[in-house]
């Protein structure tokens, strides 16, 4: 038994402690966001945030995550009430097949939490570990840029 905090909720999971987080999220907690892409830490399809840092969930055993704060795509919003990055991805129509997008959004989330006004180079560097095969890169960069603008505007309006 391992106790995890996933999207702010405490969850006790029965998978063996050596099980990579990805399989616990998908199989046991029935969350679709993190995807299996390579299982090797090479593509980022499985990226989630652990204490705000992006990690490859496919190679991170759950025993290392006891008590840590895990966030997945589901934690950022829903189709009805999308979070700022999700909304920007919808506005920019950023997907072809979309299989890579969950990982892209999670890594972008980490970036925007660290650097709220990223330049293009910041975005490209942050996303370098993430692969997309459809060639949606241009729109992914645009969506991240737009999310940063939307968030800045929202926080100004909130002031």
């Amino acid at each position: 038994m391992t106790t995890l905090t996933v999207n702010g909720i405490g969850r006790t999971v029965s998978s063996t402690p050596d099980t990579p987080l990805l399989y616990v999220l998908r199989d046991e907690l029935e969350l679709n966001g993190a995807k299996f892409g390579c299982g090797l830490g090479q593509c980022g399809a499985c990226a989630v945030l652990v204490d705000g840092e992006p990690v490859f969930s496919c190679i991170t055993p759950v025993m290392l995550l006891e008590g840590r704060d895990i966030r997945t795509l589901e934690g950022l919003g829903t189709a009805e009430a999308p979070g700022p990055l999700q909304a920007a991805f919808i506005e920019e129509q950023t997907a072809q097949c979309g299989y890579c997008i969950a990982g892209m959004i999670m890594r972008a989330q980490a970036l925007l939490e660290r650097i709220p006004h990223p330049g293009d180079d910041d975005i490209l560097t942050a996303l370098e570990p993430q692969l997309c095969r459809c060639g949606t890169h241009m729109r992914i960069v645009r969506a991240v840029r737009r999310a940063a603008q939307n968030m800045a505007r929202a926080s100004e309006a909130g002031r």
Partner: protein
Amino acid sequence: MSHAISRRDVLRGTGALVLAFSLSRHAFALTETGASETALRGLPGSLDSTPLLDAWIGIDAGGNATIFTGKAELGQGIKTALLQVAAEELKLPLPRLTLVTADTGRTPNEGYTAASHSVQESGTAIRNAAAQVREILIGEAARRAGVGIDRLTARAGVVTGPDGVRYGYGQLVSDQLLHVDAQPTSILTDPRDFTVMDRPVPRVDIPAKVTGGAAYVQDMRLPGMVHGRIVRPPSYGALLLSVDAGPVEAMPGVIKVVRDGSFLGVIADKEWTAIQAMRRLAARAQWEETAQLPDEARLPEALMALPSRDQTILDVGQPDVPSYAINALFSRPYLAHGSIGPSCAIAHADDDALTVWTHTQGVYPLRNALATLFGMPQEKVRCIHVEGAGCYGQNGADDAGADAAMLARALPGRPVRVQWMREQEHAWEPFGPGMAAHIRATLGPDGSIAAWQHEVWSQSHMMRPGPPGTLLAARDIAHPFPPPPPVDLPMPEGGGDRNAIPLYVLPNARAVNHFLPEMPLRGSSMRSLGGYLNVFAIESTMDDLARLAGQDPVNFRLRHLKDERAIAVITTTAERFGWKERPRPPAGSGYGFGFARYKNLEAYCAVALEIAIDQDTGRTVILRAVAAVDTGQVVNPDGVRNQIEGGIVQAASWTLFEGVRFDRRRVTSVDWAAYPILRFAHVPRAVEVHVIDRPGLPFLGSGEAAQGPTGAALANAIRDVTGARLRALPLDAAKVQAAMLAASFKAAR
């Protein structure tokens, strides 16, 4: 319909061609989508093979419509485009439409979702069916109200007329009303009156995909579902001599080890357990390997030495001259589709029926293959398409479907989910074939092309199911099915010879297709088939000829074109790029141009690039890409832009990075480290796509239009920067750096 026109265009564009088709090629009169070449009934699009209107469109008592298509969403946005077409002609708001895609239990048989034909085939069928359904509803309203149809209008799901005549669609439909055959002609909405088509309607599938909804077959969880994994052989055709399965069967959570000849798999209650069991099983398996692969370092030579079936596909004028100014060999390696999500399927078997949820591109052909494989009646096998990761052609989808079915039949009553591992997808998918192309060309005294010869060598680009022997599992079982005879896709679309006939007007030209029946590595369809290499070769040569003639490469192309639409995409691209006034580039930068009409039948596309090459590493980055595309009548302009943008980036990846690696026995590029693709550091810094709208003209596929022109434009830009003409793909950093060194060495001497 659109084809007849397009073929005539080709003939017109290239002078009086002699297109010779041998009988043997006609015997395989297979098209890439599996659709019949010859019209049976003369009905538009896929209505020709499925004429009943209610096979395509159902309207319920509430006046909502369900649309049925035999095509599948592959990430190209087809769902949204087909809904737009249906909504436009039905005069129903989009939210009142539901779309059911490829399912052998529910939808028409539209063969494969391939070859950029979906809007042409299914979109045309649905558009016409929807228009006819609308007219039937109006006719029914006229009958009931006793007024002429010309006094009635259909809008927003309601037919209205004089004196308060008003019927909702739901009131008008009855059981058999739409159970009629389609007519050859329909009253189609004038493009000027479009309210849904030709608009950038947001894609219906994107919200779920960006929020973690169940969007893919990988996300399906059926009650009682268990997880399977397959142990694939170490190399093509390897035989399983022995396996000590006992310790694996004893692992907690393992349900069953399944062996049939050399087919080996395991089923477990959890996915991670299945993966661990698969690894242990693999370690305990003894194989006999016999595969003999060609020498990777000399792949073009190896291909050209294979026995071939030769066919002259173009022969006009006198292309034989004593010597040629250009005499060059171009080649591409085997390319991986490399889906980001490895192939996956779920199968459920009970007493006498089998259901498979799959991201195959052809549910009916896969169903037929599985029925033969298992000796079942076709109607007892149902294949349902559920989206997977982008496939770009035939990846492991069909094989994974067969794998899941094999395991499910060994565990009746439980749904079994199988997902391939990354190394399995990389080693076992049917690659885009390695190819060679030889071009010889020369200029006349007037600076135009006087003679042109193109030869191309390739194995089959079409080894999709239908025959069970196309499936890996069917070849590994104790009583295997033989691999089917290789299919040489016939012209005018072609396979390896796709786009081997230039669209340019060439008075003296020959093109020869050397079809290789042998398959050194497993191969099948990958986006644009042979078109990528043929356009790469033709457009590289056009560039060199322009240079020899002392002419601007864009003007040189225009000078050899008659097709107005080709001229329009080239001039639009050049203007938007600022080609004429392009400044002298700083050292390390340069420009390149490329053009093709995909298959000589589909979308026209031209690409202009500005690139920079890092002088120390040879790394190429696209600074700016400008493209223009003509896809006939546009359904969703943003969808077209997305496809072209994606095509440019993907082709940049193929061109700059990619090649399947192998030794003399095994495929060795089994992960993303050994098979690198483009990452964000190499993303073009700007891409601009201009969509030329052609209201009322037939739909032309756009999904494969940008690949050839982009590859060629990159090669031409690299030539512009380095002075070196690179002809063996990929044009990776090492090759570019070596070319720059050679050039500077030459200059220094």
